[in-house]
């Protein structure tokens, strides 16, 4: 019986080519979207899963009050992990890990930079890796390091490198004690080498008892079944007890984030974990499913629209003794067959589309051919799609009464007209929401990109530098300026593309009793406003010969409530400092956020970044060559590494751009599938009206009036879906925009634009079909009757 069903299904599919093409193309695209999105979701959820203590490892987060706003960060104090393990038996292991840095490895003549993490020597109590040579004891030695396979190969061309000596950043000599397999890219801790903190350095010696400054991440491996809430309390109590005085951390809260949430729940707001990437993962999962459903709706609509033909078959089969459930089964078999064919198309689309998708997401998602769960999932999608697409037509068709349909005068396509209209309206409503969302996302990105940052990112390059540069800085600066290609040169303590340092230690006469006043700081040499092309609102820029000077930005003056600031003094880090100037707000952190208060401290020897502005009109490549030559001349030790300020700034849009691109792709696919369905419906409707159109033509109807006649019905539906979609799109995108402090307002213009686009697309779809009929010779169409 099933065989008979598949035979007739196959013959129907091959006989109605347009109908089958529309269904298979729509479902295939929908399935490809769904499968790719689910592969992505699976990949996102697989982060850190290679860790053996996956269920037991937690990262500490502190919530602090920053000028009235709660801000949660993973930076914690050096002694915390060790003290936690000593004091609380439920802490089985703990470690302190740096945020990761690029470290220069030198072996003889070979110099390479690799990302590393610095860790305390209990690191492997918490994290697990696959060792090729050596073992976990490697970092117990003060200068023993662990490198990955690829680092070993890059340095020595093989992995058998135990005992080899390497110099780090030209000052610390270490020995390779173990080699591990490369870390999968889906890991929170990414590194090419693990280096123990340098126990002999002053910084580490001081840090061992420093319970105030927080510069590293703390991880805890917790006994199974431990109450995390009570451990959080205990840790906070420990911090309070150990800190010499109250500070934002002791006044704040402490939170332990399980490893399973590191990747997808990375966002904190007002001290609470509010989600993060998971929202986009969920959103796009839904969008993929919706696209598949849009395709299923095509199948439903076309099946019921052309049911005239199938209704007769149902009638005949019923008179031959078929029960309703056998007919249901038959139609479901048929839609499952379509769904299987659609999967073949989807497979081809995934195969060709995955590299593109990976590039877009900047990830390495692969197809898990080996995984039975994957194939079960595929099978599930095929069957589910078949059932969803086929169930409504199956119920609709199998309910046909033989007496009615066998009479011949009956037009079942006319029935189910309302459900079909509702479905088409819903399809278009979804597409309109997606199109509006895409446009609004792009507008927001462009709006932020065009934001007045208070400085100029163009032609500004930031060269990595160390304190040593101070010695040769003047000569370098002069030779750069003399070349005529360079407009300005300056040094800062860190790259100017972000603010990493914050302090609550600024004091001044008449300071309000606000324990939560936090100000960002950056060390700078002379000509700061010059190099940044920042606007001085009052006072002057740093100049040579200054000492103990600071420049504050507008926001800092506002939060500090300073009157007549220029010339007055503040105290910070043990020194009196004079305010020489006020600079306009600079957007150096998130481009979506409000400006943050910033203090620039003059210090020509505090050098982390050499900032160079190339003259307008100078060829960048030539300028770079010049800079490199001069840099190498005075800095033989350190490789030449630079970043463009505008590139660094643009990276801050990566996430939003990705969302914009994904939204664009899905919106296009959704509208394409909708149009396929519309095309099918129009052609059936025209097929039925061929005779009517022929007669109208003979009676003198114009082509335009015939086109209007045929498109009227569908255009009305598009108008209705527009009216439904707009309020929803408005609400949805307003919610999204509320994530950003600096954002656009949604104008009505966008929706007009979307409306016109949708209308045009529909007109073209209908027109493609209707034009042929409207211009055909009426005599022909009448003769075939």
């Amino acid at each position, binding site marked *: *019986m099933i065989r*008979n069903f598949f*035979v*007739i299904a196959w*013959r*129907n599919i091959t*006989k109605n080519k347009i109908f089958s093409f529309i269904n298979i193309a729509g479902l295939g695209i929908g399935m490809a979207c769904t499968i790719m999105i689910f592969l992505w979701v699976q990949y996102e959820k697989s982060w850190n899963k290679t860790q053996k203590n996956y269920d037991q490892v937690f990262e500490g987060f502190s919530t602090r009050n920053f000028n009235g706003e709660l801000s949660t960060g993973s930076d914690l104090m050096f002694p915390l992990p060790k003290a936690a393990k000593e004091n609380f038996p439920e802490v089985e292991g703990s470690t302190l890990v740096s945020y990761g840095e690029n470290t220069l490895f030198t072996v003889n003549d070979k110099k390479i930079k690799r990302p590393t993490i610095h860790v305390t020597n209990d690191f492997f109590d918490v994290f697990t890796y696959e060792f090729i040579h050596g073992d976990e004891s490697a970092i117990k030695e003060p200068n023993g390091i662990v490198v990955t396979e690829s680092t070993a190969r890059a340095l020595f061309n093989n992995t058998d490198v135990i005992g080899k000596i390497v110099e780090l950043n030209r000052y610390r000599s270490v020995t390779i004690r173990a080699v591990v397999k490369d870390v999968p890219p889906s890991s929170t801790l990414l590194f090419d080498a693990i280096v123990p903190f340098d126990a002999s350095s002053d910084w580490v010696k001081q840090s061992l008892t420093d319970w105030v400054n927080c510069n590293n991440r703390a991880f805890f491996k917790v006994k199974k079944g431990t109450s995390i809430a009570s451990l959080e309390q205990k840790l906070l109590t420990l911090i309070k007890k150990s800190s010499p005085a109250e500070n934002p951390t002791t006044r704040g809260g402490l939170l332990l984030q399980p490893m399973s949430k590191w990747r997808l729940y990375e966002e904190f707001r007002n001290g609470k974990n509010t989600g993060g990437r998971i929202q986009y993962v969920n959103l796009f999962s839904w969008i993929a499913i919706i696209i598949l459903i849009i395709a299923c709706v095509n199948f439903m609509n076309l099946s019921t629209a052309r049911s005239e033909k199938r209704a*007769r*078959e149902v*009638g*005949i*089969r*019923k*008179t*031959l*003794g*078929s*029960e309703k459930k*056998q007919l249901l089964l038959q139609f479901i078999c048929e839609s499952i067959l379509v769904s299987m064919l659609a999967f073949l198309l989807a497979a081809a689309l995934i195969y060709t589309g995955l590299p593109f998708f990976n590039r877009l997401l900047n990830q390495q998602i692969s197809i898990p051919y080996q995984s039975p769960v994957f194939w079960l999932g595929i099978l599930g999608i095929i069957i589910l799609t078949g059932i969803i697409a086929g169930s409504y037509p199956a119920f609709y068709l199998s309910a046909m*009464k*033989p*007496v009615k349909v*066998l009479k*011949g005068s009956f037009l079942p396509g006319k029935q189910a007209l309302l459900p079909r209209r509702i479905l088409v309206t819903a399809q278009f409503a979804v597409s309109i929401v997606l199109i509006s969302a895409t446009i609004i996302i792009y507008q927001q990105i462009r709006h932020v990109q065009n934001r007045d940052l208070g400085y100029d990112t163009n032609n500004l390059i930031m060269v990595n530098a160390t304190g040593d540069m101070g010695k040769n800085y003047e000569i370098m600066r002069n030779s750069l300026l003399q070349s005529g290609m360079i407009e300005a040169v300056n040094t800062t303590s860190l790259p100017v593309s972000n603010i990493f340092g914050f302090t609550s230690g600024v004091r001044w006469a008449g300071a309000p009793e606000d324990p939560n006043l936090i100000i960002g700081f950056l060390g700078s040499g002379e000509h700061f406003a010059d190099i940044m092309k920042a606007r001085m609102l009052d006072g002057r820029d740093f100049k040579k010969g200054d000492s103990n000077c600071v420049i504050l930005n507008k926001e800092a003056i506002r939060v500090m409530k300073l009157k007549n600031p220029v010339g007055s003094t503040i105290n910070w880090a043990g020194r009196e400092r004079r305010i020489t100037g006020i600079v306009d707000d600079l957007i150096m952190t998130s481009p979506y956020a409000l400006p943050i208060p910033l203090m620039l401290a003059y210090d020509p020897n505090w050098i982390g970044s050499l900032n160079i502005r190339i003259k307008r009109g100078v060829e960048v490549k030539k300028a770079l060559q010049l800079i490199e030559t001069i840099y190498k001349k005075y800095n033989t030790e350190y490789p030449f590494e630079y970043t463009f300020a505008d590139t660094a700034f643009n990276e801050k849009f990566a996430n939003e751009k990705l969302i914009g691109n994904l939204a664009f792709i899905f919106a296009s696919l959704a509208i394409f599938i909708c149009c396929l369905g519309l095309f099918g419906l129009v052609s059936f409707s025209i097929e039925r009206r061929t005779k009517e159109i022929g007669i109208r033509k003979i009676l003198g109807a114009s082509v335009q009036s015939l086109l209007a006649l045929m498109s009227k019905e569908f255009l009305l539906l598009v108008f209705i879906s527009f009216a439904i979609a707009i309020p929803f799109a408005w609400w949805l995108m307003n919610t999204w925009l509320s994530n950003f402090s600096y954002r656009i307002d949604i104008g009505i213009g966008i929706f007009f634009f979307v409306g016109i686009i949708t209308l045009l697309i529909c007109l073209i779809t209908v027109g493609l079909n209707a034009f042929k009929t409207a211009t055909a010779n009426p005599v022909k169409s009448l003769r075939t009757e």
Partner: protein
Amino acid sequence: MIQLQNIFKWINTGSNRVFILKDINLEISKGDFVSIMGPSGSGKSTLLNIIGMLDQASEGSYLFNQTDVYALKEKQRSQLYKENIGFVFQAYHLIDELTVYENIETPLLYHNIKQSDRQAMVADILDQFNIVGKKDLFPSQLSGGQQQLVGIARAIITKPTLLLADEPTGNLNSSQGEEIMELFRKLNEENGTTIIQVTHSEKNAAYGKRIIELLDGRIEKK
């Protein structure tokens, strides 16, 4: 076999009630061969459909083999239908996407007959109707008479006790019609199949053992 008592059939068009069948009382016994005649629109098809359980009377009672058809549940009625009734239509109503062989085989699928038995039964009937050579053709490749032969083969392959035919020869020329009528007579005489046919032709009606005249939804004479 069939007892119809006070059968009425009406349809509501707006506030009007239009009667299609009015007070039909009819008894047909096993092995009978009945021809129903009457002008177009007199309710012949409606009556046939009611007998064939494809349609329900608005009022009245219908006993089939002493069973009250209208007291049965949907499922039991389908079962009763499946076991006893075969239909032949004026428009043949073959399934276009199936070959002759597959069309004839289809009712056997719904009767849950084994593959090997199906093959034998279909081969048998193809042979009996002299259409073995056409078994792999699609309906559109056959003439009207041949299509109707397939339609009849399909209707009788499950050996129904009652064969209902609504103007089976309406679309055929007279020699083709005669062939079909001969076939009916043979079925009735040799297999004892009860046959009820609707026809416009006096000649074909004469193949029946009795003739029922319908006029305006009423039986005129027996």
